[in-house]
Structures are given as C-alpha cells and as structure tokens.
C-alpha cells in the first residue's frame, strides 16, 4: 500500500556499491548496485545466506559504512550530508548481541539512547525529566522497566536484547534497524519480541528493517522481503511473492518446500533432509526447473 509513494519513503537506496579497502588491493565488492526502497511504516525483512552482504547493507543504512558509489536517502535527506547526531535521531541500530564487558545497569544502558538528543555537554549532560520519561516508556515497551537496576552482566540473553532495543527506542528514531535480533532467543522470546516490534510499528508507525536468518519469522512479520545473494539484491516483494522454492534453491543452494501457514496464510518454509532418491522425486514435484 505505502511501498512506492515516493514522498513517504523512509529509505531510498540507489545503486549502492561497497567494498572494503581499495579495488587495487583486490577487495571483492560486498554490495553490487543495490537499489530498493523502504516505505514509511513498513516492516522489511532482509534475507540471504551468510556473507551475502546483509549486515553490510544494514551498516550502510546506519551510516557506519560509507558506500563507494550510490546514494542513500532517509526521508528524502541524503545520509552522507547529515551529522552523526541527526542520523542517530532518525535511525537506531540494534547490533548483534555482544557479551557485555562492563557492569552497566539496564537503566544506564537505556539512558545512553538519549545521547543524540542531549545538546548540553557542558553540565555533564545529566538527563532531564523528559529524557527519563522517554526512557521509562522505552523500558516499558520492551518490558525491562522492572529490571532497571539489574546489571547487564547479570541478566539473561533475552532481557539483554530487549534492553538494547529499549536503548534504540530511547533515541526516538523513525526507523529501527535490527541485525539478527532473535538469534539467541528461544521460541517464546522470539515470538514475544516480534509481537512487541509489530505493536511499535502499528502504534507509532515505526519503520523497521530486520536482518534475519529465520525465514518463517520474517515471513510472518514483514510486509516486504528483500533477498540478498552475493552482494546483489535478487528479489524483493511481499512474502507470498518472494518465498518460493526456486529462489531459495538458487540463493541457499538447498532444497526447501513452501506451504502456507494455517492461521496467517503467509508462506512457510521447511527443509528436507531426505536422501538423494526421494529428493529428486521431491524436486520434480515442487520445482519447475530443478538443479
């Protein structure tokens, strides 16, 4: 519905190429002419095998990496011309979970999300009452308000992840970028996290881009899916159009079958570990071309 009305685009990524180091040193490009749009209020999933450039793409969206060519626009403004603080007020990145080194409390972690909003560096930048309100709301949205005095080093992986997302929400961003948010979570926490994100998307019109390996979770939650393969964008569209066996055969190089989820009607992927003999019959049943 709102995926292509130009002005409402949260992100316009136009012909982005990226490589580490110089071409002279033979650095293989990680992204090759990637072009797509993220509409405001959309939830977009970025799928693709390891090393396909998903995380690189996310870092470019957060301006942690700068592409050699191509343009990235956020709500019509070129990312390259914006100050770090302005970017941080618009876009919040939730990186992959890393083990905490220092014993900050949950509240201290979430408060750090207010950094881009605090202009007064002179007086040590103590947080204002407004900052505390935003932080409290962020902690409640991620259900960590009751853990505010607990240390990051002492809580579970799921709680830590929610605290990191709460920190991102405390930035009051318009776009939330998540890098494999569910990778260390059990099933219940995966579902809980995704429901919370959907709620934020519905209530605050928060645009969300999520990199994940969990095809089924992405299929359930996302409005649109972008599939990366060897640095190129190979397919984008709604889950029903993108999640096809032949595409996953090409991208992941393994055989999957796709059916529909009994409740949501969204496509659902299952992998088959069958022997060659049965697999060939399976392929002939499900695949057009084979491989």
């Amino acid at each position: 519905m709102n995926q292509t009305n130009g002005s409402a685009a949260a992100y316009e990524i136009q012909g982005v190429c990226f490589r580490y180091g110089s071409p002279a040193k033979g650095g293989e490009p990680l992204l090759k002419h990637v072009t797509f749009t993220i509409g405001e209020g959309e939830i977009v999933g970025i799928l693709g095998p390891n090393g396909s450039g998903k995380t690189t793409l996310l870092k470019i969206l957060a301006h942690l990496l700068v592409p050699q060519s191509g343009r990235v626009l956020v709500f019509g403004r070129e990312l390259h011309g914006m100050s770090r603080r302005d970017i941080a007020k618009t876009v919040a990145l939730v990186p992959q979970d890393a083990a905490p080194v220092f014993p900050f409390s949950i509240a201290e972690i979430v408060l750090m999300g207010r950094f881009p909003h605090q202009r007064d560096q002179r007086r040590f930048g103590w947080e204002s009452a407004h900052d505390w309100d935003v932080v409290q709301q962020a902690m409640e949205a991620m259900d960590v308000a009751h853990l505010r005095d607990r240390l990051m080093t002492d809580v579970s992986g799921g709680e830590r992840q929610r605290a990191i997302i709460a920190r991102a929400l405390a930035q009051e961003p318009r776009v939330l970028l998540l890098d494999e948010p569910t990778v260390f979570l059990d099933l219940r926490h995966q579902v809980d996290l995704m429901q919370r994100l959907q709620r934020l998307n519905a209530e605050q019109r928060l645009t969300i881009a999520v990199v994940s390996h969990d095809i089924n979770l992405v299929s359930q939650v996302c409005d649109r899916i972008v599939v990366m393969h060897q640095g190129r964008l190979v397919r984008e569209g709604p889950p029903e159009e993108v999640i096809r066996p032949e595409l996953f055969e090409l991208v992941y190089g393994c055989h999957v079958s796709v059916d529909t989820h009994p409740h949501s009607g969204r496509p659902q992927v299952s992998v088959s570990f069958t022997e060659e003999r049965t697999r060939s019959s399976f392929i002939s049943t499900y695949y057009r071309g084979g491989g």
Partner: protein
Amino acid sequence: MSERVKNGLSMASSPVQPLSRTCAQAEAQATERAPRRHQPTPWVGPTRWALWMVVLLVLSVLVGFFCLRFGTKAISFSELVPLVIPGLRSVWETNTVDPITSTIVWQVRVPRIVLAFLVGGSLATVGGALQALLRNPLADPYVIGVSSGAALGAAVAILFGVGGSIGGLSTLPLCAFVGALGSLAIVYVLASRHSGLSMYTLLLAGVVLNAILSAVIMFLTSIAEPSRAFGMYAWLMGNLTGPDPATLGTLTVYVAIGIGMMVAQARALNLLALGEEVARSLGVDVERVKKGIFVSAALLTGAVVAFSGMIGFVGLIVPHMIRLAVSADHRLLLPASCFVGGMFLMVADTVARTVVSPGEIPVGVITAIVGGPIFLYLLVQRSRRSAL
C-alpha cells in the same frame, strides 16, 4: 455427590476469578505507573553525583590527615591537630609547637602525601578511561606498557640531560609524555587489529612492550655513570620522596588538565565502552573522543611517571572497585576513581615508609604486591567465564 461438589466449586470459583484478575491487573498497573510519578529517579543524576563527590572528598582529607601521623617519627594526634589547624591550638591548650615536628610535617610529610594523592588519582583515572576506550577491564597504564613508554622518555631525559627546560617547563614530563603517547599508539594499533581477540592480544602486547622497553631502560642505565644509575633505579621502582612546592604545583596543573579532559568525555566514554560502532551509531564523534583520551592519558601518565617512577596496578584495581561498589557510569566512575586512587596510594606510601622504618620500600613494590594477585584473579575469572 462428587458432581455437585465439583459444580459448587466451579460455581464458587467462577465469580471470584475475574475479580482477582482485575485486582492483579490493577496492582500491576499501579506498580508500573508508580515510578513514572517521581521522575527523574534520584539514583542516577547530579544529586547522587554531588553526594558521592562530597563523601569522597571528606574521606580523602581524613585519610590524608591520618597518614600524616605515621613515619620514622610517630606524631600523636594531640601534636598533629594543633600543628595542621592553627585555629584549634587554644582548644587543644598547647601553644608550643615543636619546630622539628613542624618541619617534618610541613616540609616532608604534607608534600609527600599530596604527591601520593595526585599520582594515585591520576593513575586510577587513566586506568578507568583506558579500560573504556580499549573495552578491556584489565587495562592499566602499567600493565599495557604506557608507563614503561613514559619511563623510557624520562630516562632518556635524565641520562642525557636533554634541554633542561623549554619556556619554563621542565622537559622531563614532556619527554615522558612523548614516550607514553608512543607506546599507547603501538598498543592501540596492535589491539584494534584483531578486534575479536583484543582482550588477550592487548595484554600480551603490553607484556611484550613492557619487556622491550625495560630492556632499553636497563641498557641506558648500564651505560650511565654509576651515581646517575643508582638514582634511576630508585626512581624506576616508584618513589614519592621530597617534592618541592614548585614541582607539586607543576604536577597539579598537569593533573588538573588531564583529568578535566577525561571527565569532559565521560558520557561519550560510556558509549565507547559498549563498542565503537555502537557509539558511532548513537552519534558520538568517536575519532575526536579517542584522540582526546589518548592525549590526556599520555599527559597524565607522562607527568606522573616523570615525578614518581613506575607505580603499577593502581589503575587496574581502583576503577574495578568503583564499578562494583558505585557505578559503571564514567561521569561518576572517573572522578570517584581519582579520589579512591589517591587515597589508596596515600595509604600504600604510608605503609611503604613505615614497615622497615627508618628505611623505606619503593611504593611500587607495595602496589604490585597488592594489585598483582588481584589482576591474576580477575584474569582467571574472565577466562573461565569466556570459556563457558
């Protein structure tokens, strides 16, 4: 019969259940809303900060005063109080102040204790800031070789008598500053190369750098005149004797600038402690903050090493204690480390000059005996945790 009982039970419980649920909901809502009413919460913020600072300042003064008592000649409090606070002489009913005692206190002990405070405070603050910058809770200017770099710079200045002074400033701290900056740069490049392994790579790089720099210093000492070489040895082990007021004044200026620069970056350091990319994505100008911390760390280490030699592990233990006892927030951590580090070294130095009185042990020996085992304990604990 049993049917009826079941029925009765279910009938009895059915109207109760929704009621109790609403009660629980109301309670949950109330507890959820309660903290929102008293915003901002007082436990992080300027009030708590100021309270800690006052407490630590008072404590530092008391500890310093207590340390004045000890030494080759023990001075009782009844002598000490009227000496230090002239206003209390009438209260204490002693109008006569022993001139020798007065000289010992004012010419020897007070400068020494002030020096110990400045040195300890600087080392602890540098330790705290480097730990955040390198994301390594075991970093310490001594352990990672920054102190050795400063010592080499200072040794070159002492042995070759470089310059003397440039524009009124002694070249000794300047040479030590250059040495500290150089070794910090080497260690940082080594550590950031292998970002995944940085924790142990960093410590290993520090150990090797220490070994190389010590070898160079030893070489310089062995080719120097014997009288100078002896002085070098005494200084290298950590020595807080006999600073004159001018020296103390210079050091105070260096320390104030260095600690000021660090504390000004405290909020950015909080974010840097979570990782460089996180800090950048939250709007921190990472390169600028890093440069500021590098320069101030080298400034403080250089100044401190030039005046007092190699004193290790203060920068490791103190920030660690503060994180456990107070907070990991660098706005509080850095100044608190400064006070506690100062107190720690005042006490360590008092021990150093009393246990074998009238002789004295280099204070670096005391801090290493106390700090070394703590370092090893933390190292084992960390590696065990990461192995799990």
